[in-house]
């Protein structure tokens, strides 16, 4: 069996993947050539990363607007600390809620500690959907706000792999 990639190749592979997967019939072969390795070594490394849960997502970043998901709403709630896990888990299971996180309050500027993202095609339907789910889960009395996005300025994956000198690569 072939040895795995050396650390330099691993880092180089990470950096190439930040730009996305090459759009060719054999993407892993293409990546292997770029980092002077073999296709099976690249595949093995990627399978390992995948099994270790290193990939947050395997596929696409969609432009929701271009696809008609124009109503991107952020629902924020001020949930008592004692209830946050229960409420978070319940809302996290609601169909239509794509992300659900606890974040810190920043008093006095910001009181909300639970964040949910909801994407929909029409704003009034998203509003109605959120009203209904707050009522269903008896959460309407909690202080909450709905922040609709009206414009997207930037959407990309970010740049994270440190360069070989240890300084973050500028994109």
């Amino acid at each position, binding site marked *: 069996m072939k040895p795995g990639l050396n650390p330099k190749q691993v880092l180089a592979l*990470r950096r190439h*993947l930040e*730009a*996305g*997967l090459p*759009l060719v*019939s*054999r*993407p*892993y*072969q293409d990546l292997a050539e770029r980092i002077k390795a073999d296709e099976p070594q690249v*595949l093995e490394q*990627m399978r390992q*990363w*995948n099994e*270790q*849960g*290193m*990939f*947050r*997502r*395997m*596929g*696409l*970043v*969609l*432009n929701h607007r*271009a*696809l008609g998901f124009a109503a*991107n709403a952020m629902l924020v709630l001020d949930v008592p600390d004692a209830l*946050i896990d229960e409420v*978070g*888990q319940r*809302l996290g*299971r609601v169909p239509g809620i*794509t*992300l*659900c*996180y*606890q*974040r*810190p309050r*920043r008093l006095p*500027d*910001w009181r909300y500690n639970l964040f949910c993202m909801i994407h929909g095609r029409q704003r009034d339907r998203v509003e109605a959907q959120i009203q209904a789910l707050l009522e269903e889960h008896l959460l309407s009395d909690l202080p909450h706000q709905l*922040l*609709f*996005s*009206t414009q*997207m*300025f*930037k*959407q*990309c994956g*970010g*740049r*994270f*792999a440190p360069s070989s000198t240890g300084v*973050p690569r500028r*994109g």
Partner: protein
Amino acid sequence: MDDLDRRLINRLQLGLPLVRHPWRVLAEELGSSSSELLDRLHALLEDGVLTRFGPMFDIERLGGAFTLAALAVPEERFEEVAEQLHGMPEVAHNYRREHAWNMWFVLGCPTVQGITETLQRIERLTGLVPLNLPKEETYHVGLYFPV
């Protein structure tokens, strides 16, 4: 966008197989050919329907850091500040939202220290104090959008 585009997008949201000829596998599933699917994907990226294709690392697991941050930008300065943030590689998303805190963006850096420094730089650059709202608990992540 036709039916094949839609089926391709839906399928790709579930990931691409980690095999030597991933497009052959997909072509078989979708009743198409590798080259047709690649052409479609090229076109979808070109048209801006998709903004990226390929696996994305979970930054926290790699020792990197993310945060969600917000600025309350005076209306007359909105475009200018959006432009300043656009030039920063650490800014991964930036949305305008209807609220006094009207600019919401995600920062991604190799380290937590990098996040702190970037927020300080934004404050110096814009004269506005950002809200720093790093995630403390994840209850759900499921970005799947049937189209």
